[in-house]
């Protein structure tokens, strides 16, 4: 049997009191709590805004089904499904981006770069094209096509990257190459279909929450409910993967297997979110980086990346829905809101610490 490790002498109490405990990681906990509090506030604001603004008291009543019928209808039937959809889509993209960035140890690794978006896009445009070119219309629903396309692209990348270790650079380059090919195919299909269908495709390709509700939200909600806890259980392993393989293996983690499992979770989350809302630009990439900087730790806490993603999509969609003259697709706004915030964080970081 394996003997217990020899115990070393206890350090003097005086000395130990000088050493702050490395856990709980108070900064991380504070950042997570702050981010979720922010999300709650944003959610309340999003539920209050619409054709007619609702006061906090009226909102509280409406959420419990009390108050004027048209307010209850506006809050529960019109705004709530869309707000929930924005949150789960954002959270799914955020967790997905955070996982892929930390697993592949590369800030550029995100589902868009890994080809999930390109795969989903080509599948959706292909389905629309079949209808447009005289084939059967609506045989495959758009969300199903997107899901299959996204997962298919991921499987293809896994296959092409096989042989080499499942490591950052190789898998990223394979993803970029495949994305380029699939995007070219999408562009080709767009030139072959009629104008109306091309416009419909373009709206989907930007990422939009217009005219969507519980039907789209439910599959993502279920996916998030299963996959995010799985990511949290594996967070301990995820933190180890920041180190090189020989070090990680020395801690009793099988790096290859751990990476594969975490990437599968990331890919499924991204594919589900894409199926519901289209490839909403930039959310996955920016959420992971924002989370990493808010927590000031080398790893990316999934709960923080999820909150960042949910907040970003919700803010972007609420602005797109209420503040602008015409309802813009949310994908236009996520880039406009997310990019400056990331640039701000990068600037601030550079002034205090060497490299961003």
């Amino acid at each position, binding site marked *: *049997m*394996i*003997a217990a*490790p*020899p115990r*070393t*002498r*206890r*350090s003097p109490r005086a*000395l*130990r009191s*000088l*050493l*702050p*405990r*490395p*856990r*709980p990681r108070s900064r991380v906990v504070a950042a997570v709590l702050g981010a979720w509090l922010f999300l709650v506030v944003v959610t309340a604001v999003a539920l209050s805004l619409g054709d007619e603004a609702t006061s906090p008291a009226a909102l509280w009543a409406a959420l419990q089904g009390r108050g004027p019928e048209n307010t209850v209808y506006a809050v529960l039937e019109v705004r709530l499904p869309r707000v929930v959809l924005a949150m789960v889509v954002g959270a799914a993209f955020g967790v997905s981006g955070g996982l892929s960035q930390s697993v592949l*140890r590369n800030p550029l690794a995100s589902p868009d770069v890994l080809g999930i978006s390109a795969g989903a896009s080509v599948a959706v445009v292909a389905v629309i094209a079949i209808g447009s070119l005289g084939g059967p219309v609506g045989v495959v629903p758009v969300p199903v096509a997107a899901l299959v396309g996204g997962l298919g692209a991921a499987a293809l990348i896994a296959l092409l990257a096989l042989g080499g270790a499942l490591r950052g650079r190789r898998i990223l380059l394979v993803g970029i190459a495949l994305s380029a090919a699939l995007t070219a195919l999408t562009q080709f299909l767009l030139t072959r279909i009629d104008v109306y269908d091309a416009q419909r495709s373009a709206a989907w390709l930007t990422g939009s929450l217009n005219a969507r509700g519980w039907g789209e939200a439910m599959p993502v909600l279920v996916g998030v409910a299963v996959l995010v806890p799985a990511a*949290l*259980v*594996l*967070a*301990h*392993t995820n*933190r*180890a993967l*920041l*180190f*090189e*393989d*020989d*070090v990680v*293996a*020395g*801690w*009793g*983690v*099988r790096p290859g297997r751990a990476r594969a499992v975490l990437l599968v979770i990331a890919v499924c989350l991204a594919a589900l979110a894409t199926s519901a809302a289209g490839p909403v630009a930039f959310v996955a990439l920016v959420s992971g980086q924002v989370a990493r900087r808010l927590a*000031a*730790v*080398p790893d990316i806490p999934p709960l923080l990346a999820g909150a960042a993603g949910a907040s970003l999509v919700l803010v972007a969609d609420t602005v797109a829905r209420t503040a602008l003259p015409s309802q813009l697709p949310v994908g236009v706004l996520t880039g406009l809101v997310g990019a400056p915030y990331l640039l701000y964080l990068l600037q601030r970081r550079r002034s205090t*610490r060497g*490299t961003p």
Partner: protein
Amino acid sequence: MNTVITSDARLRADAVNLGYGDRAVVRELSLDVPDQKVTVIVGPNACGKSTLLRGLARLLPPASGTVLLDGRAISELPTREVARVMGMLPQSPVSPEGITVRDLVSRGRHPHQSWWHQWGESDTEAVADALRATGTEELAGRDVDELSGGQRQRAWIAMAVAQRTDLLLLDEPTTYLDMAHQLDVLELVATLNRDHGRTVVMVLHDLNLACRYAHHIVAMRDGEIVAEGAPAEVVTADLLRDVFSVEASILADPLSGTPVIVSHRTVQG
């Protein structure tokens, strides 16, 4: 595998072949690592020292043969269980950006934790002890990136110490260090062995340091063990000529009495 174990060494290699792809590096090698001793593997470049160490640490699965830990094939043991008994420090490991010494050292507790038990009193104690034993307490709050080579190496060794394993495998822990830091690191290793009874296996380039700090020297050439034993028995002028292709005189260290090598010239194969 029901091989009868005759040796009682905790870590053994039994006729292992190790390599990368088709390239065989270590051939039919058998080794008993003496318990609670410092074993140093020496040999010229590309003789398979590091490969052997990676094989012992189950980072490289053998093409054939078995590495045994406590009488069981290491490849069949749960990896986490192995990590609680045997620690491994690769050569000049790279730390992720922005990680502090304390965070690095606390990672050594990884095999003792799980997602539901992330941090306990014993972990705090192990980390504090490791920082103290390696003299890195005052560095604890600093980023590993900012440290000098010697400090960084001490921080990494502290990580391995915090893992509290009976066996510790170190791949060239003195690489890139100046003379004083080399001695610091090796004194630290000697202390871990002497005071805490840890079994140490390390790869070293410097033969004089190997002679001084090893209880047991393993000399390798072309993936095979040429000689092993106490430094005074193993390190001879013949061995230096045969293994390292160097003509040298062997003197005795006036303080420790261990062999000291004075090299004169290289000899052709």
